[in-house]
Every structure is written in C-alpha cells, then in structure tokens.
C-alpha cells in the first residue's frame, strides 16, 4: 500500500514535470522587452539595420 502510494505520487509528479509548462516570459525575454523599450537605443538599432548589406 505504502509502495503503491509512493509510485502513484512519483508518477503524478513526473507527469507534472514533463508536461508542457504554462507559457510565460523568461528572465531572458523580460530583459529583451526592457531593452527594446529603451528609446536611447533606437538610433543604434536603426543604424545597424540600414547599414547592413542585404542580398535576397
């Protein structure tokens, strides 16, 4: 009984661990968003995009 309970609990936790998590922003992306909101960087980003040669 005790053994079976432990196995069922393990199985439930495993299911929770391996199922797709609820979507959320990561620390990484939160910083990207903050980064993108910094208007002082706009010029540099634009400059970077327009100065690059681009071939299709």
């Amino acid at each position, binding site marked *: 009984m005790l053994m079976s309970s432990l196995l069922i609990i393990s199985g439930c936790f*495993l299911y929770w661990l391996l199922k797709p998590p609820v979507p959320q922003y990561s620390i990484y992306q939160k910083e990207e968003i903050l980064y*993108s909101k910094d208007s002082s960087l706009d010029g540099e980003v634009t400059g970077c995009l327009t100065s690059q040669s681009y071939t299709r």
Partner: protein
Amino acid sequence: MFDFSVIYALTVFSLMVLFLIWKPRGINESIPTTISAILIFLAGIVPLSDIFKMLGIVSGASITILSTIVMSIVLGSIGFFRYAALNLVNRANGSGILLFWYIILLCFLMTMFFNNDGSILISTPIIIEIVTLLRLKHHEQFPYLLSGALVATASSAPIAVSNLANLISLKIVGLDLNSYVVMMFVPSMIGITVITLLLYFYFYMDIPKRIPILPVSYVDGKFSVSIPHHPGSPRPPHHAQPPRHAHPPRHPIHGSHVGHPEPPNPLYHSIADKANHPIEIDMFMFKVCITLIILIRASLFIGASYGIPTEWIGTSGALLLIGYRWYQKGVGPYDIVMKTPWHIILFAFSIYVVVYALHNIGLTTLLVGLLRELVSANYLNASIISGGLLTVMSNLFNNLPSVMIGTFTLTEMGLNTPTLQISYLASIIGSDIGSLITPIGTLATLIWMFILRENQIRVTWADYLKITIMVIPIGLLISLLSLYGWVEGLFF
C-alpha cells in the same frame, strides 16, 4: 596455508581489478572480467553447476535491463526525449539553476517510478537533448549529466523495487517491501539530499545561470521550436531568407510582439539552428506508447503479487512495444539489437563468476571471522561496518555480486534479527549509494557511460572519480548514521 586455487584465484582477481582501473588503451570493462571468468572456470574453481546458477541470477537482471532498453529506444524513436527536454527547459523559465533542480527531480522520480537502470536509460537521453539544444560547453554539460546520473542511481535506495540488488536477500533477513520502505526511506533520502547539495555547491560556478527558453509549437503533427532568427547572423542554406523589412518577431507563445529582435547572441542562434528542425511526432502513437509503458509498469507489481516473474512481464511488454512500433512505423527490432550494450551484460555475468570464485576459496569465511565480533557489538558498528564493506566490494567488483557475498557473510555471522536487518539495510546503502565512487560500482553507471560515449560526450574515469570521491563518502556516512539513528530510535 594457501593452496594453489587460492593463490590462482587471488592472482586472477588482482589482475582483473588492476586492468579495470588501468584500462590500457581504453579497453572495454567487459574484456578483463570475461578473460578472468574464463581462467577461473578453466581452473575448476567455479563448477559448471554454479555457472548455471549464476546464469539464472544474471539473466533475470539482464532481461529486466533489456526490456527497459527496448522501452528507452522506442521512447527515443517517437520523440519523447526531445519533447521532455523542451518542456523541462521551458519550465526552468530561463534559469540554469532551476533547470539543475528540475533535472535532479526528474532523475529522482524516474528511479522511484521505474528503477535505477530504467531511470538512467530514460533520463540521460533527456539530459543529453537538453545540453545539445542549449549547446552548452563541456564544463557546463557535466554538472547536469553527472548530477543526474548520481542522483538517479542513489535514488534506488529508498524503495526496494528500484534496484535488483535490493531484492536479492530481502526475505532471508525477514523484511518485506513495506517494512523496507518504512526503515529505509528517511535515512536514504537524507543521504541523497546531502549528495545533491554537495553536487550543487561543487558545480555552482559551472552551471549556466541564464538559459534561453525554447518556445514549442505543435502544428499538423509536427512538433517544433519556433525561435526568431536574428537578422544579422548567417543562416543555414536550407532556411528561407527573411523579408527585408520584417516586423519585429512575435512572442511564439503569446503571439505578441516582443519589440526589436533579441540582442546578438551566438548561443541563441545555434539553438535555433538545431531546434528549428521539426520532429514529426505521431501524437496518437506517442500516447499509446506512454500508456503501454505505464500499464507494463503497473503489471510488474500486480504480476509480482501473483508470483509471475518480473522478467516475463518485462519481456512481454518489450515485445508488445516492438510489435506496435513495427506495425505503426514499419521499424523492425534491428536498431534495438544494434543499440543494446551487450558488453554490460557480459560484464555482469563474468564478474559474478570471478566473485563467486572468491566465495568458493573462502572470502566469506574470512570476512565472517574478521567482522563477526565488531558487527554484533552494537547497531552503530553494524551500520557503519556493513555499509563500508559493501561500498569497498561494490567499487572493486560491482554491487550485484557484492550484495550476494555481503548477504552470505551476514547470514553466516549468526546475528540476532535486529542486527541482521540493520546490517542488511546498511549494506544496501553501501551497494546503492557507496558503489557510486567508481563507474564499475553499478551497472547503471556503466550504462550511463555507454550512453554518453554513443552521443560523443567524453567522460573519463578521472573526470568521474574527481567528483565522486569527494561527494559520495560524505553522503554515504551521513546516510549510514541516519539509518542507525532512525532504526534504533523508532524500531528496536
């Protein structure tokens, strides 16, 4: 005092251990053990009748491992490892530290749910997928891989069915599955916690603090990762070029704009390159296989209570999975035959023969004579000495034959029931946790090294020993002391 057979067996054994540790030209572990077993057999130290007896013992363990290998290969071929890896990485939410703890939890739960070999066979490919997807450097991969393997193997101590070595002599010492859990769960969990914390602090500097998340999409039967590509980086030839004035990438899960493209990060692009290759998963087949595996696992317990050998159930389950995969995907059993580490089974059998020879020439009698007084003196002695003895033997010649020798020794000492039980449980801690110092200590560790080699991840004995020698003895000692305190305080 010593006759020819004693000197001969000791010489063969010493040479075998020397070659196992030295590993000249990186020879496989099974070569010295097989040659030693042949030499022992030819000298007549282990008769043919004993060889058949050992075949019976080792074949049970081998069939169980083989059926788990089949399960692992089928899981791999349906994309389960990639699926699990992506979900774990995303659950960590950008934190490498959190990912470390999730991997530890995964390995622990896998061992509780399957067994130590099954856990290694399923968790290791998931961890390899994780470190490959994240393109971690070798020193960043190692904390996840080694900590996972050590926790997966050590976690076989709390429950008897998690390790074949635990079951060898359970009835002989008057314990059943439930009494085993009641007496062992707490002390072994303390040991596992200590080992995990030591590994965490040891590897803290190597664990990457930040990792990207890998957003998953599942469309039309294709399971893939959609990571926005940075326009400034070179694209692989098979990718289409982005439009000149592309909109800022959308968050792949929420669908909202995330502003400008992500800051230049080569790691991010390498992940995108690998992960953007979609894997086609037939979700129906995926669900059927997972259901079959859970049913096979449940049948092992139900069957065992009706006296049906677990290897029969394991084999039937493996054949069912192979048959189903063959029917659905037209893939026969060829890859299973090729991917199975047959040499590990050969190692298990041959080392059993050599250790049995030591028993036949009087090792058990010698140990009984040396240790009887010490072990029977008090429970603390019984715990430390039995655990220590099994640790030494397991690291020299694997835990399966060591538990056999250990049990022979304990039962021949004529101990009272409480001392016998505490000694047996301590010897299990030695064989499950203490045996992790060297890679030959358990078959699970050998399987782990085999899987890493197959995936071109190089881990030497020195890499392994450098960490285990510092972590395992402390965890073992605390576990044995906890066993003494727990059992004496609550049961005797």
